[in-house]
């Protein structure tokens, strides 16, 4: 984190440097002290603390010569001679930092800075932008400094704060000031600063506030004023509670997100298992087929309708349903139909089918993962709490899976096919007696379940890698969701899917992903001690064999 802040600050400093020259010409602030050779001499040395002090002095001076040195430092064009003079390199020529005379670089070595000093220099250069007449430039400078405030720029911030007129910028400038003024000599100012810092509700502020309430080795507090300490403590408490809340919310969301994928995978599985009593080991491959169908549609849009690329999911959703459903119906008609009543062999057969499908995909699309790009409206996310961003693609999938469950529910309860499916699930022979064509119902239901898995694949392609092994990584979890929820009932699958997702994600932070998986398995084995038929068992004689 700290590192990315540093690099970001450095990059923005680079952008600003170009316009720095203008600022310098427009009227450099009056020099408080003239730059002396003694001021810059530490830069030529090896002591980073001395260098830091020298840079502080350059910032405090902020006259033309000092700024030139700072600029050279940030561009790595400052050289130091053995005798302690600092030279500023400009192309092939070099001039003395103090006298401005052109000299030969000779055996001068570049001044070395560590990351801390680099960010200090970058911060100082940004600080100078606070004087800019352009509000946008000032805003950018404040943003850069907020990420990486260094107490050394306080004089610049103080000056800018007095002059700033834009109320929005002024407010941010106040925050910036507060971050630099936490160690001000005046307790009242410190108190104000602490309150402003705490009000940012930014978890990174913990770093600034914690030292205030910490004790020195001799037992006395770093911060002498008790009011400031109390303010800092309440700020820390508030940040902690925000962090806790966002952690809980994050876990919850991750669980729901995993659950929504498991749900889509398990739904089809539960339907076919409930109906035909067949566990389809190739079910994961329907996910894979759906994902690859999405990939193909995406490619077609890229080639033929790049303008409408954002809307490719509209076509990818039905395409993935159709592709997986088609493969499903072929599989059912060609193979599974002949194996009804032999569930264990069906297990093996469908595993063979999954091997064939995986290998065929490998040969068609290559063994590498393919890239499915999110449409623009799905990238990014909504920031709910500081440090908790809900990505749009995961939100979209959550909504999508709920819609699919709704559709599946409607199909199963409101349509003629659904009626037949439920009838055959409950009592196959009796349904056949009253004229239900059970074989056809089997085919349609299987295709429907496969299609739903295809939709799951379409959803998965938006959040993860798409490769031939895609199905394998989800299949066991979705089996577990079915075992947990019980079969033949939609509610069971929904609870099973989300429950499994939530429990896994809730355990993960404590034990890690692997142990969480094992714990979930143990929980399931223990759970079926109590409810062997899952949470939502079918009632009646058919349930117990």
């Amino acid at each position, binding site marked *: 984190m700290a590192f990315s802040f540093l690099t970001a600050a450095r990059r923005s400093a680079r952008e600003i440097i170009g316009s720095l020259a203008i600022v310098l010409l427009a009227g450099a602030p009056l020099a408080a002290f003239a730059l002396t050779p003694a001021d810059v001499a530490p830069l030529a040395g090896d002591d980073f603390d001395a260098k830091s002090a020298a840079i502080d002095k350059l910032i405090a001076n902020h006259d033309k010569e000092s700024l030139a040195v700072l600029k050279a430092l940030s561009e790595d064009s400052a050289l130091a001679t053995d005798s302690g003079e600092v030279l500023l390199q400009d192309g092939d020529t070099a001039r003395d930092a103090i006298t401005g005379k052109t000299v030969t670089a000779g055996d001068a070595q570049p001044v070395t800075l560590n990351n801390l000093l680099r960010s200090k220099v970058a911060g100082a250069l940004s600080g100078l932008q606070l004087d800019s007449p352009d509000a946008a430039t000032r805003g950018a400078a404040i943003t850069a400094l907020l990420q990486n405030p260094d107490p050394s720029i306080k004089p610049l911030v103080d000056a800018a704060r007095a002059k700033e007129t834009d109320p929005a910028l002024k407010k941010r400038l106040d925050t910036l000031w507060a971050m630099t003024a936490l160690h001000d000599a005046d307790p009242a100012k410190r108190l104000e600063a602490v309150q402003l810092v705490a009000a940012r509700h930014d978890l990174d502020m913990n770093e600034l506030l914690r030292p205030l309430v910490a004790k020195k080795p001799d037992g006395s507090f770093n911060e002498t004023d008790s009011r400031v300490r109390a303010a800092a403590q309440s700020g820390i408490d508030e940040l902690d509670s925000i962090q806790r809340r966002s952690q809980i919310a994050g876990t919850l969301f991750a669980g729901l997100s995993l659950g929504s994928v498991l749900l889509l995978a398990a739904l089809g599985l539960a339907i076919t*298992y*409930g109906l035909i*009593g*067949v*566990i389809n*080991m190739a079910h994961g491959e329907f996910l894979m087929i759906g994902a690859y169908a999405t990939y193909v549609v995406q490619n077609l849009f890229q080639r033929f309708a790049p303008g409408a690329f954002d809307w490719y999911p509209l076509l990818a959703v039905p395409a993935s349903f159709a592709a997986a459903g088609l493969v499903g119906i072929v599989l059912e008609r060609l*193979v599974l139909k*002949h*194996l*009804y*009543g*032999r*569930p*264990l*062999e*069906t*297990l*093996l*057969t469908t*595993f*063979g*089918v*999954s*091997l*064939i499908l*995986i*290998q*065929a995909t*490998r*040969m068609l699309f290559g063994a590498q993962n393919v890239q499915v790009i999110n449409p623009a409206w799905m990238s990014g996310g909504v920031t709910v709490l500081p440090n908790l961003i809900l990505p749009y693609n995961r939100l979209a999938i959550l909504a999508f899976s709920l819609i699919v469950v709704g559709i599946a529910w409607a199909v199963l309860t409101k349509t003629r096919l659904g009626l037949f499916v439920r009838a055959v*699930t409950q009592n196959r022979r009796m349904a056949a007696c009253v004229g239900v064509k059970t074989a056809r119902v089997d085919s349609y239901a299987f295709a429907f379940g496969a299609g739903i898995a295809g939709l799951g694949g379409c959803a998965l392609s938006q959040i993860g890698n798409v490769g031939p092994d895609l199905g394998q990584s989800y299949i*066991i979890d979705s*089996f*577990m969701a079915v*075992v947990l929820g019980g*079969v*033949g009932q939609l509610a069971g699958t929904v609870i099973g899917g989300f429950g499994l997702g939530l429990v896994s994600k809730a355990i993960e932070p404590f034990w890690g992903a*692997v*142990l969480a*998986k*094992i714990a979930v*398995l143990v929980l*399931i*084995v*223990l759970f*079926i*001690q*109590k409810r*062997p038929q899952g949470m939502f068992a*079918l009632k009646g004689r*058919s*349930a117990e*064999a």
Partner: protein
Amino acid sequence: MTSASSSATPSTHTGSTSGRAAAGYEAQSGFALGLPPRPALLSRRAWLALIALIIVFGLGVPFATLVVPETSAFHLSAYAMTITGKFMCYAIAALALDLVWGYCGILSLGHALFFALGGYAIGMYLMRSIGHDGKYGSDLPDFMVFLDWHQLPWYWQGTQHLGYALLLVVLVPAVVAWVFGFFTFRSRVKGVYLSIITQAMTFAAMLLFYRNETGFGGNNGFTDFKRIGGFPITHPGTRTALLLITFAVLILAFIGARAIVTSKLGRVVTAVRDGETRLMFLGYSPLAYKLFVWTVSAVLCGIAGALYVPQVGIINPGEMSPGNSIEMAIWVAVGGRGTLIGPIIGAFAVNGAKSFFTANFPEYWLFFLGLIFVLVPLLLPNGIMGLIEMVTRKRNRS
């Protein structure tokens, strides 16, 4: 539902003669007034064939590896020995799976776990017996030095003794299988449900063994073994001995399994397969029977794994992948379930095909394997043994 359909159609399980005879008998007399004659452990012809095989193999292999010069066409190369040994270990595992699947109706998709547990148990001993010859020359196995561990985890204590490692080979799979079986069988989980839970079990274990912190070498597992029981592990003599031991275990496992399935206990087990509910109504509690066969099968599988590792020279968590477990099931299905001899043939046939394909057409192996999975249940429900039986019956009739 599923289980209903499986138990309602016992005709799908008529792999074994004893099962069929029992069903027929029950239909005629209603009560068990007298059992049909108990099948012999092995027929006279089978005994003769077995003894002939033992003599040929027991004398032929040492002769071909140690006496015949390497240049001769009759010399058994190290590669051929590894392959034969490997296949025999697979055959033992297939035999173990047939005990539970063919006779008890439990399709385990987790037997690779027991295989690997046995392998890891002996692997611990093999790692310890490397001694100071590892890359780091430390007391600890190399991977522990690499992880900056300074002492052996408690479960590695004592593994420097071969006897203790052999005890672990038996005990670890037995305990794991017993505990898992107790909880699942007690709640009467069966059919495909059970298959899936066993698959999840081996999957979870695989993830666990992939972790470095688990203390079994993580991704890389155990390899670079130097010696076993004081003998250099790559020496032809050691290898021949290992091969002969594997062969002996295979024969003993076969006879033992045959003894189980022909015993009275074996009949109850078969009855569990054909009609568990009916058996319960007759006053039996299937739990103990299922647990016994399940545990025996797991132990046998563990022994197979323990024989496998020193011959192949490596064990890693990939060995317990769900895919491997399912492959075991297809060996049994190809050979013929509930025949004991069939799975042995199946293990050799499928793995022979695998060696051939992966050497010649690597990208088509998965297609071929997939096709076996699809076609064998469709066209050859009783596997190779079923085919043989069909052919001989036809010949007898004509």
